[in-house]
């Protein structure tokens, strides 16, 4: 059998960086959520950390419901940061080489103490303003990409599937409009 050249070309256009790094990364993200769920029964989400951490410094009544979980949510977030740092110190730095990983062409790589770090080229105003919308929307919408996207969709929750369809559609339209307006990166 000879592979269909049209199909191969289409695959290359849809997935210019292949799929392995994405699939392996996704499996690990799911595994991290599963480890916590199996041990504790908690379907972890990342955005609740924003409100639960605000309960340390704000007396607003809305945040008080998160006081019982705020300490472990800090630990979960620290774990995410350190896990990503471990990735940077190993795979991204070339200490561990794998054909599954390609450095990519986005952003800028720089070195600190032998560790290869990465920084974005996306403009600060986009990050800041986008962040404000993310902070409002994930908390009103009952979840983010991990809560709705990973745990909710994994639970076959109709609420989460509708939530993901909503934010994915709006995000696609927003990104395309911003790009069409000539904003880059």
């Amino acid at each position: 059998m000879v592979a269909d050249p049209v199909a191969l070309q289409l695959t290359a256009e849809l997935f210019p960086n292949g799929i392995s790094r994405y699939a392996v990364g996704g499996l690990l993200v799911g595994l991290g959520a599963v480890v916590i769920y199996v041990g504790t029964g908690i379907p972890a989400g990342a955005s609740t950390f924003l409100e639960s951490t605000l309960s340390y410094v704000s007396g607003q009544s809305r945040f008080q419901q998160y006081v019982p979980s705020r300490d472990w949510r800090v630990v979960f977030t620290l774990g995410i940061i350190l896990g990503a740092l471990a990735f940077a110190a190993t795979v991204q730095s070339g200490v561990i080489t794998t054909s599954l990983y390609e450095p990519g062409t986005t952003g800028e790589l720089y070195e600190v103490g032998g560790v290869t770090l990465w920084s974005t080229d996306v403009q600060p105003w986009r990050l800041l303003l986008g962040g404000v919308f993310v902070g409002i929307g994930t908390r009103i919408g009952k979840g983010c990409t991990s809560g709705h996207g990973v745990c909710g969709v994994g639970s076959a929750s109709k609420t989460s599937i509708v939530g993901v369809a909503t934010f994915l559609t709006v995000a696609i339209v927003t990104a395309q409009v911003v790009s069409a307006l000539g904003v880059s990166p």
Partner: protein
Amino acid sequence: MSRDRHPLFMPLILVGGLIFGFGLGFSQMARPEVVLNFLQFEDFGLLFVMFGAAIVSGVAFALMPRLRDSAPLTGDRYERRLKPFDRNVLIGGAIFGVGWGLSGICPGAAYASLGVGNVSILWALAGMFVGAYLQGVWRSKRAAADAAPAGAD
């Protein structure tokens, strides 16, 4: 300090977070550019991150309630993540979508982005805290107004 937690509770949360964060780094979802390339239909690989993770967690959500009654470290029952649907899911989801499409970053990926060395992501994290705070103030006020009938102080 906290109520009789199992001594392995926090270590397990940390290990779960480490794997989660390593995966976000490996998948490059911690890079806003990669998310924006996906949203602009230039690279559809990110679908494999989201659905790959959802499939893995889906297996656990389907299996665990049948294998055990309760989680070993908390005694909590295994339940699926089901939240009631109301229009907030649509309104909040749309607002989140604007932010995700503008910045290319979501909360978990933002924490991981900091870990891979992206100091600029502090702008996004600051914005997320500001946004979460603003909606918290607004909803706290509204809850108080609902609780206290007009005329009462």
